[in-house]
């Protein structure tokens, strides 16, 4: 039995928002958030039960974050000027750290954010990223090691 979508949204919106805020540039967070939950709303009625809704929506969010990343790269290649980006409301406390997080390869970045920002267990991170628990742990470790090199 599925909860009303609003309940699903209220339950998981903060987690998804935190995940995206740490994964994509500030001006893309809201877009990725919309894309994630619109995609979830689209396929919501086809879900058979309410188990693992959290993993399900984070899988969608991690894909949207990667999609955005690919699009950014294309934009960079064609060197389009990006104008009028809204500034974040408050300055980030640790801008270098989050810039470094966003520079990680997508899978490492997702694993680090899910583990340390969202505080999820590796078993669930594996399910979200469609890999084994061990692989999730490995990606997270590789990402963390890389951050240690650039952040101090």
């Amino acid at each position: 039995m599925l909860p009303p979508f609003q309940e699903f949204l209220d339950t998981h919106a903060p987690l998804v928002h935190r995940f995206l805020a740490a994964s994509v540039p500030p001006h893309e967070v809201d877009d990725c958030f919309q894309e994630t939950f619109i995609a979830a709303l689209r396929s919501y009625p086809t879900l058979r039960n309410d188990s693992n809704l959290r993993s399900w929506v984070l899988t969608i969010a991690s894909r949207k974050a990667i999609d955005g990343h690919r699009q950014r790269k294309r934009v960079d290649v064609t060197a389009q000027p990006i104008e009028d980006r809204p500034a974040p409301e408050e300055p980030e406390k640790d801008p270098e750290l989050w810039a470094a997080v966003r520079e990680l390869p997508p899978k490492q970045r997702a694993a680090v954010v899910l583990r340390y920002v969202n505080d999820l267990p590796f078993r669930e991170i594996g399910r979200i990223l469609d890999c084994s628990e061990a692989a999730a742990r490995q990606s997270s470790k590789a990402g963390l090691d890389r951050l240690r090199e650039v952040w101090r």
Partner: protein
Amino acid sequence: MIDKLERALKGGMATAREITDAKYALARRAELEKLIDVAYSEVDSPLGPLMAAATPKGLALLHYGEDDEALQQLADKISPRVLHAPARLDEVRKELDEYFDGKRKRFDFRIDWRLMAPFQQKVLKATYRIPFGKVATYRDVATKAGAPKGSRAAGNALGANPIPIVVPCHRVVRTGGGLGGYTGGLHRKEFLLELEGVTLGPR
């Protein structure tokens, strides 16, 4: 072995922004993309808070109080794509306000009858035609629904009316002038009849 880096990552960025706006924007976009099967909104009324829910076909539910159980029922019986999207209920809220202000005698928005069983639908459609300020008996609506001896069944159908006030089950009373029952509480039935200028008494 939590170190400084792990602590800095914990909880995300300091700029975790308010997500309420993001949720409203989502509801607007979902409505544009026709992805909301059931939109709901709270409605203030002199009878206390109400919850109104509409499908693209019309108003399907008007509920006394605001509880999650009603939303779960909508999810189970219509579709789990239930979203807080007040814009779809703007017309309903406006007309209800006018009704409670004594400025409106009938509702013009559309109704989705799907939450009612077939016999209940007949009873409630007959009820829907009772004009403002008038009353009918349980036997009257049973007869109009094709079951002249079904007063009791009609009473049950009215008691489970998913759209009270709008489908005016408060206008159905006992033969002889007794008030009868009301699922929302008899004080509400009295309030609504008084609002419409109805005085009951032995006839």
